[in-house]
């Protein structure tokens, strides 16, 4: 297949693009419009909302009302539409092209799910209206719970955590409560592999545990001997991601669970990569005690530029009694919502991310048991296809055996080229692709973690592989300068992150004054 080269040079002419980068007369470039900040285009005298006039009588609020201007600009409706549409066009999106961020699972977001979440019976109901008026909502939550429990082989689920990290917190709080209930307060440590997501050690520390790292074997898995040596009466839990962040299934997972339980600790599984095994493997059969499920990954609720997520936590029989409020019970009069605290407390004000529950449930119904399994298989197939097609030009971190839903490469193949993982990633931007996850997991030098997901066609995968192959040849062919200068085709070139951190400017100030 030929290199994609229609409409954009694959090898930018530095001289030309340098001048192009200065911008056109008014900042526009073809279809891409420049857009100033809201505070520079809006005005205090403008509004895009027509409200009826209310005679303000605030006599009962004497001394409590605002006197000074707030400093908020307004936009008319057409100006607002232009402002946000122009800004939107400066973003990459899964709807536009492959978004191979490993560990992030950028897959297609079905629009039926958006439509369902906006039905008045879901979007326009209040978290505290009488439960007799929200029986459909409770039924949906109950059904979602049933699917999650069936797919994981776990007996209980707490729906309220609002994101994956919030779910980790929920799981560890349940584990701590379970230890406390047994009068076992001596367990102060949590074990986690070096390859873990940053949220794992952060969450453990948050709950007051000390974090000890578990060594990794040469083939990218938990080192059983090291785990056995570190387990003891002071260990509260292990936190292991499976499939792990190297994209590999932990072959010894059942033994890991057995050793953990033997030491009196609980097994927290980071479920970020559940999408690789859903329908084929039940975490409950592996000995897991608690696992969060990122509905925004496995069940495709949209990432929205960084949230909102949703992170329900499935719990084993041992931890189920320690689930947080609220929970649903079946009674003669229908479903009831129990709000009293029976576990360690409450994770958030209401019942969790209902809007995400609706989307995830619509996704589950659409796929069904067969489709979910097929989705996991296709995700794994696509990742292995990329690994197979690129292993001769890049260095796979763990070449032996299959990967799961993501393929991990290191930067040995860039040695001596003067091109870094970062440079290579930035060059991918010029080819219309979002870069892969860079420099994570930490156990591999210059890591490049590629997760294509099941919603990529073979044609798109081939296009991606072809681009990587040509770029790899360029990197090895002594074209380092081009990589250092990338990206050239993006709305902006490389940004100075050091400057941003040294002199933080976190809000717009008139005349550009810097916060002291």
């Amino acid at each position, binding site marked *: 297949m030929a290199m994609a080269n229609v409409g954009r040079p694959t090898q930018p002419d530095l001289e030309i693009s340098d001048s192009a980068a200065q911008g056109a007369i008014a900042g526009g470039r073809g279809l891409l419009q420049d857009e100033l900040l809201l505070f520079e285009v809006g005005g205090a005298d403008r509004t895009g909302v027509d409200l009826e006039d209310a005679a*303000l009588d605030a006599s009962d609020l004497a001394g409590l009302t605002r006197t000074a201007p707030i400093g908020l600009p307004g936009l008319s409706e057409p100006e607002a539409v232009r402002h946000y549409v122009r800004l*939107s066009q400066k973003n990459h999106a899964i709807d536009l092209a492959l978004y191979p961020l490993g560990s992030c699972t950028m897959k297609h977001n079905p629009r039926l799910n958006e439509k369902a979440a906006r039905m008045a019976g879901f979007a326009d109901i209040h978290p505290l209206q*009488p439960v007799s*008026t929200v029986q*459909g909502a409770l039924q949906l939550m109950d059904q979602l719970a049933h699917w999650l429990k069936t797919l994981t082989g776990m007996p209980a689920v707490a729906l309220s955590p609002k994101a994956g990290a919030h779910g980790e917190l929920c799981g560890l709080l349940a584990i701590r409560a379970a230890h406390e209930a047994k009068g076992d307060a001596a367990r102060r440590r949590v074990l986690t592999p070096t390859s873990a997501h940053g949220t794992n050690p952060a969450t453990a*520390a948050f709950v007051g545990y000390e974090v000890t790292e578990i060594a990794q074997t040469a083939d990218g898995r938990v080192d059983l001997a090291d785990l056995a040596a570190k387990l003891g009466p002071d260990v509260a839990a292990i936190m292991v991601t499976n499939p792990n962040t190297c994209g*590999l299934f932990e072959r010894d997972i059942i033994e890991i669970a057995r050793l953990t339980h033997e030491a009196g600790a609980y097994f927290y599984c980071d479920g970020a990569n559940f999408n690789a095994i859903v329908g084929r493997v039940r975490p409950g059969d592996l000995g897991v005690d608690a696992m969060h499920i990122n509905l925004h990954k496995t069940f495709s609720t949209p*990432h929205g*530029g960084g949230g909102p997520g949703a992170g329900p936590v499935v719990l084993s029989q041992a931890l189920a009694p320690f689930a947080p409020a609220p929970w649903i019970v079946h009674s003669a009069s229908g479903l009831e919502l129990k709000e009293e605290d029976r576990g360690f407390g409450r994770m958030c004000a209401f019942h969790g991310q*209902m809007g995400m529950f609706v989307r995830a449930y619509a996704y589950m119904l659409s796929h069904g048991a067969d489709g979910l399994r097929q989705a996991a298989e296709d995700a794994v197939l696509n990742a292995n296809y990329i690994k197979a097609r690129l292993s001769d030009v890049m260095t796979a971190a763990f070449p032996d055996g299959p990967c799961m839903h993501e393929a991990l490469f290191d930067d040995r193949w860039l040695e001596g080229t003067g091109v870094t993982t970062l440079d290579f990633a930035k060059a991918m931007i010029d080819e219309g692709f979002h870069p892969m996850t860079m420099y994570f997991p930490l156990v591999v030098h210059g890591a490049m973690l590629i997760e294509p997901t099941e919603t990529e066609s073979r044609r798109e995968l081939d296009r991606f592989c072809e681009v990587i192959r040509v770029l790899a040849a360029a990197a090895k062919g002594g074209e380092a300068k081009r990589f250092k200068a990338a990206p050239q085709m993006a709305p902006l070139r490389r940004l100075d992150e050091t400057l941003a951190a040294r002199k933080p400017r976190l809000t717009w100030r008139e005349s550009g004054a810097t916060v002291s």
Partner: protein
Amino acid sequence: MRYLPLSDLDRAEMLGVIGAGSIDDLFVDVPAAARKAELFDLPGHAGEMAVERALARLAGMNRPAGAGPFFCGAGAYRHHVPATVDHLIQRSEFLTSYTPYQPEIAQGTLQVLFEFQTQVAALTGLEVANASMYDGSTATAEAVMMAKRVTRRNRAVLSGGLHPHYGAVTQTIAHAEGMQIVRQAAAIDAEAAVIAAIDAQTACVVVQSPNVFGVVTDLAPIAEAAHAAGALMVVVTTEAVSYGLLKSPGEMGADIAVAEGQSIGNALNYGGPYVGLFAAREKHVRQMPGRLCGETVDADGRRGFVLTLSTREQHIRREKATSNICTNSGLCALAFSIHMSLLGEAGLRKLAALNHSRARELAGALAKVAGVEVLTPRFFNEIAVRLPGDAAGLVEALLADGIVAGVPFSRLDPGAGLDDVLLLAATETTTSEDIAALTAALSRRIG
């Protein structure tokens, strides 16, 4: 399957390229005992029409707020959201993008976050704001832990006017971190009672205005007392529209302001997703939780935006991070920011005035109902009333009249001994007819 592009031929050919005999070969690392050959006991795949029908059936079993007179508030509010907001947040590039880790191709999201932070800082009267939290309640818990880091003290005092669920979340999360959380008993108009509980170990007081009973309080004296004792004042707001009428937390001396931002741009959604607002003094910025977006320049000197001060965050600092938070509430923050831009200063003030005027009409009408006592002396758009009997029972009875009368306080705090207290909110969506229907039904039921 309409969401899966691979054909069986693709699959077979790709397995060939990989050198695998079947898909099972790619799952060889799964222990044999855990391999599931059969499908799980769940329904099979379904077409779009069937799924839509199933969900519409469930949605139809719920009573939307817009179906008739509706007075629930207590942390979530029904407001009119302009159609433009929902259209714009469904732009592919906003809806289906990830956290802006590659700033060159995420300037849309980043500029929006920068504008959002500026709007939140202006509304709260503080210098810096983050790119949002999960919701108001988790933002409150994070504020308490930030106060611990700033003051190196271990105790927080929560007022009796703080939303009980916010208190419970803060207790759960901050207690996990080893903090001592003092929750004062539910009290309608006693935010200042926190002053007496401040001691040398107090990191912060947490007060709410308007509080859960709707009461608006001048918090300046509380700030003075807290600061005199070396403690911070955290101000909580659950109704962001109130910023358009009331003195800002910053103006009253708040060190940290947190809020539930749902009212602006976001639907009720049965409790989530919502958007937590978080603002603070600039001198404490390095102790803030959550994502921050900052201004910088690109290689050609052009203005651009990046996520910054990430050395506070879990992906860099791991167990030493200020918080374990990994996401923000991006799309909800976008909705907030678009709605706020459409309102502008003039629109927000007008909206706030309209809300207050509706609530005055509601309070005035309820005061005339025999047996109903309005308990909230100074309010924005929400009031508490005392009824002659159990509020939950009366709310249930009024459903038969087609009215959702509000939130019984016992739903939030069953042990407070305030079973006869009902919380009611009025917004720009509340009509005079709604209020008349409520008071007429109440008169019938009570009389």
